[in-house]
């Protein structure tokens, strides 16, 4: 089934519809599928900002030149429309706020105050437990960047933690590279096994007794990362709003990295979110 020019709006209001079966692989259908799916966080940013070079804009210009795609269309396409509980008035209020004529809001990879939460399975003293690692992208004056661990969520370590100074180690070759998020932080496996270089992956400014305990157990070898099971992005950089993004793996045009939740939040709400949801100060 071919798409009509209204498809971007149509499927948002009329609901998702199943795509052709995979035996259309050889017929060129995959081009359309690739254009619609939000495949990486960078593509999410491009679409959010209405960047002309993002695949879906290029696809529509080439295949449906008579259709006038708008930024509102693209931002709406970034919501997980399979969720029936969306508050439409809240969504509209958000879009109006983002697109305010005098100073429209854009997001950038190097923004402060956004985080990646990696859902994990840890093995601690030979038993498996769920948990999360919270990471933040640090951006430096020479335009370089790296991810660093800023928080841990777990219920299997003693609550009090262990006081201790941040273990200084400055090996610039040991980093979680800035594109680690695109492969679900596979590099965390390497990092958490790098006993000698372990301090390089942790952010000093977020050091706490619980982090120190987690760090020590990793170093001793009684704790290890068994598996990662998904990444959630927490975007707190947009004034007045908090967004959560997740990856939706499904054979539908509305798929890939999409907005899974949206809430209004002032500065105090955001501080509370960091403490309670992300377990960071």
């Amino acid at each position, binding site marked *: 089934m071919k798409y009509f020019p209204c498809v971007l709006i149509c499927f948002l209001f009329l609901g998702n519809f199943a795509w052709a079966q995979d035996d259309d692989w050889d017929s060129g259908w995959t081009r359309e599928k690739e254009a619609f799916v939000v495949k990486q966080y960078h593509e999410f940013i491009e679409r959010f900002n209405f960047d002309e070079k993002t695949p879906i804009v290029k696809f529509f210009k080439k295949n449906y030149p008579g259709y006038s795609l708008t930024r509102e269309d693209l931002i709406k396409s970034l919501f997980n429309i399979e969720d029936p509980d969306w508050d439409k008035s809240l969504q509209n209020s958000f879009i109006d706020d983002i697109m305010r004529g005098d100073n429209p809001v854009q997001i950038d990879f190097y923004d402060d105050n956004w985080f990646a939460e990696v859902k994990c399975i840890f093995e601690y003293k030979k038993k498996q437990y769920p948990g999360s690692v919270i990471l933040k992208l640090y951006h430096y004056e020479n335009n370089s960047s790296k991810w660093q661990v800023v928080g841990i969520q777990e219920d299997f370590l003693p609550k009090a933690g262990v006081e201790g100074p941040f273990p200084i180690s400055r090996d610039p070759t*040991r980093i979680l590279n800035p*594109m680690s998020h695109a492969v679900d932080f596979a590099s965390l496996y390497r990092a958490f096994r790098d006993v000698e270089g372990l301090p390089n992956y942790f952010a000093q400014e977020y050091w706490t007794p619980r982090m120190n305990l987690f760090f020590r157990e990793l170093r001793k070898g009684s704790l290890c990362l068994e598996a990662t099971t998904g990444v959630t992005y927490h975007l707190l950089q947009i004034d007045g709003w908090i967004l959560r993004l997740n990856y939706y793996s499904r054979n539908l045009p509305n798929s890939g990295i999409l907005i899974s939740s949206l809430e209004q939040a002032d500065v105090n709400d955001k501080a509370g979110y960091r403490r309670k949801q992300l377990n960071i100060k």
Partner: protein
Amino acid sequence: MLLGSILLALLLMASSCEGGESEDDAPPPPDPFNCAALCDDVVEAVCDVNGKVYINRCVAECAGAEVDDSKECLPCRFEMAEYHAQGLQKVRLLDEYIALILNKGVNTTSPDNTAVDQAVDEAVELFVNEESQVAVSGTRTNYYLVRDYLERIKNYSYGRVEIKWSEIGYLSGFKKGSDGNYYGTVTVTQKFSGYNPEGEVPIYEDVTRKNVNIVLKTYTISRDGEIDTECEVYLSDIGVVDSRRIEG
């Protein structure tokens, strides 16, 4: 007396050797247009407003360029698109090696383990190092070191395999890591078909979308007295974003 004169003469000669420099011996003043001499060779690429790349800000400003800090630029000889293309080429080459390994080296000049072992070694060379990891999806995604992954797939029993590519999914730009390398990600979608021992009927097919990290390693070299930068593309971690089995 004669000895004293000789000693005096020798002393005067030594003094003239150790003495202050004459104008003819003074080093020439630095050439203000020889920026490579005035600046250090630390690679922190900047671009000017016309997109021309300089190895660092000192060299750019020394040459009178107007630096544009809003541009992401690579300190490499070629444009970003060229390195994206090289990265994609290596991803496709990896898949060719994987197909060869899974086809057990059939249709090569030495259809035995030699060809397969060679394919494993050559595939590993595509990666930045042997600590690169490859994801395998199942009930849970597991990561294998690249050599372990390639050794593992040797044991798959297909008569033959086919790997077909979709069009390019998505290419992120390169981001500079604080280790000095540049990192990008390419999303590719492929259809895998594994056939029965006779090679006629597909017994397993899936469509998988993968994200492949690409690393641009930078090297400074001296060329005709000037510092220049070379860049080499390697593969790094590979993650599985989506995988769907095609039911027959």
